[in-house]
């Protein structure tokens, strides 16, 4: 199998045996980026020299007989929201263009320490606000399955890099679905760990009570390997959980779901859901049932209010968090002519530096938090958050995991929803409840929608700190589907005419 289509787990074994060097692996992916990223546009920044130097360091350590972790020498695409020294961090915003952070995020440091080879920074909706990457201040990323479609968002760059075989691993952040929805529409795996399970230190903040860094990969096992490197208590993040990381790798290797109780959320389906999405979702349920799981219907009545609560809580936190971009200590500064006051410079800088969606959300948050409206908007939304958490608690009293489609439709067309914010927001209908309640959730590919031939994602949700259940169910589904299809969903893209430009077909 070629280097590009191999999983991280396979590459790891071949690196350990000496069959491949980390330099060869890094070079192959840099060449792929060079060859296809003009079309896909997944990366905002690539540093080949740095990647090769990191790969050489891993090769040298291995040659010296050092015992290395499973991800040593594996390339990774990093969402441009994680700080990393020696490279720009833009968060997809012009207001941060050219900013080089003076420190590494905790997760960046963990990856570097594990010998992971960072290829570059991936495109995203500005400050992680969006479902399509169309809100990036730089350019839109294209879905590798169909370049006229969106790759999801906000982490569309990371998901597209995986689907275009530009990297075997990527990382993202999930505030309302920004890891899971891109995974769903690109046929990749994306996991939102339990809130607090992965450190937010050095991750540019959007909505601090919701933001959750997590792994993105082409297989469930690869996501688990990355998860176990990223996760863990961080004293530098006051909302980090001081508890052992669940055995996600063991769960991904096992995939045993015999006797597991799986609850289908009755609220997620019907009107607004693409028939092909629902069909593939139902087929996946039948597969899980065939593997020994018990499928039951579970009602979570307040999930219908999750989107509304989210679009009050998140913008409120955004309006506060984004106040730090004040043109004083770093980032863009406009109008500093010796005449304008500090306040005026802030007004001009933020007016010029933020894109339309960031402005919308900051203003909604400012409104929702203003006196006279606070109780009705922000206060009520916080109560809905309680009701959603109670729905989850009641559901997890009856079942081990909950499931739904990850997003109601397959990848929509670029441009289709830019002038209709509410339609854009609905892409996160099924993913938002887990952010509000803080439990963990994942998206696993479950096939191509028969109506348009595009990937469909299957969402699994588990209780807080039961992240291993996501991997158990994900691995079971992935394994059974792969045996039916004769490979993964992306192997199908690689060998199809639509994926011919990726130039990885036929090398299985």
């Amino acid at each position, binding site marked *: 199998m070629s280097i590009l289509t191999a999983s991280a787990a396979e590459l790891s074994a071949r690196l350990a045996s000496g069959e491949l060097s980390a330099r060869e692996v890094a070079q192959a992916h840099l060449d792929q980026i060079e060859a296809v990223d003009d079309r896909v546009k997944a990366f905002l920044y690539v540093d080949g020299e740095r990647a090769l130097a990191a790969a050489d360091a891993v090769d040298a350590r291995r040659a010296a007989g050092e015992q290395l972790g499973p991800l040593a020498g594996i390339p990774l695409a990093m969402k441009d929201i994680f700080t990393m020294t020696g490279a720009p961090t833009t968060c997809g915003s012009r207001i941060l263009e050219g900013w080089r952070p003076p420190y590494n995020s905790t997760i960046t440091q963990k990856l570097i320490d594990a010998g992971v080879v960072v290829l570059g920074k991936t495109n995203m909706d500005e400050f992680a606000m969006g479902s399509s990457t169309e809100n990036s201040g730089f350019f839109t990323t294209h879905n590798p399955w169909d370049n006229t479609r969106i790759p999801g968002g906000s982490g569309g760059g990371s998901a597209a890099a995986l689907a275009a075989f530009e990297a075997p691993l990527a990382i993202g952040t999930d505030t309302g679905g920004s890891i899971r929805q891109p995974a769903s529409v690109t046929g990749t795996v994306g996991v939102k760990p339990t809130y607090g399970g992965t450190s937010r230190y050095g991750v540019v903040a959007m909505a601090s009570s919701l933001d959750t860094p997590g792994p993105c990969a082409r297989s469930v096992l690869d996501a688990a390997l990355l998860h176990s490197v990223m996760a863990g208590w961080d004293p530098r993040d006051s909302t980090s959980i001081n508890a052992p990381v669940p055995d996600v790798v063991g769960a991904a290797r096992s995939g045993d779901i015999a006797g597991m109780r799986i609850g289908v959320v009755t609220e997620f389906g019907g009107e607004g859901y693409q028939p092909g999405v629902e069909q593939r979702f139902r087929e996946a349920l039948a597969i899980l049932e065939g593997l020994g799981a018990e499928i039951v219907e579970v009602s979570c009545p307040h999930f219908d209010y999750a989107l*509304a609560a989210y679009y009050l809580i998140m913008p409120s936190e955004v309006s506060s968090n984004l106040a730090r971009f004040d043109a*004083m200590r*770093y980032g863009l500064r406009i109008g500093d002519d010796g005449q304008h006051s500090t306040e005026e410079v802030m007004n001009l800088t933020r007016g010029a530096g933020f894109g339309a969606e960031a*402005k919308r959300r900051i*203003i909604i948050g*400012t409104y929702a938090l*203003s006196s006279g409206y606070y109780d009705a908007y922000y*206060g009520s939304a916080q109560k809905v958050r309680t009701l959603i958490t109670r729905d989850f608690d009641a559901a997890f009293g009856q079942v081990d995991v909950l499931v739904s489609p990850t997003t109601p439709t397959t990848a929509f067309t670029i441009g289709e929803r830019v002038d209709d914010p509410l339609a854009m927001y609905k892409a996160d209908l099924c993913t938002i409840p887990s952010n509000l309640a803080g439990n963990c959730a994942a998206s696993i590919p479950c096939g191509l929608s028969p109506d348009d031939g595009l990937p469909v994602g299957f969402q699994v949700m588990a209780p807080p700190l039961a992240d291993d259940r996501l991997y158990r169910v994900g691995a079971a589904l992935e394994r059974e589907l792969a045996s039916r299809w004769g490979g993964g969903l992306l192997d199908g893209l690689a060998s199809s005419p639509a994926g011919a430009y990726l130039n990885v077909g036929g090398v299985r």
Partner: protein
Amino acid sequence: MALTAADVARLGELARIRLTDEELAHLAPQLDVILASVARVTEVAGADVPPTSHALPLTNVFRDDVVIPSLPAEAVLAAAPAVEDGRFRVPRILGEEA
């Protein structure tokens, strides 16, 4: 409720964002639609429901007060839009009449 362009301009100033007339004309009706849609949270937010601000059952988190090195001043100032005498240079903070 109908937000006017003037309302949005006022919110923009509160948030320190200068909006053009074109942006105001575009944003006001969009924000109206969004706010009308999210207002349905009031349908179920009864007086007996306690609010949740955070998913974790954490209150205060303490750590030992240990001295660790700070970032070097040069590394921090390197990212600044304007620097003078080893400090951030900022525009005047008082109004014209001061």
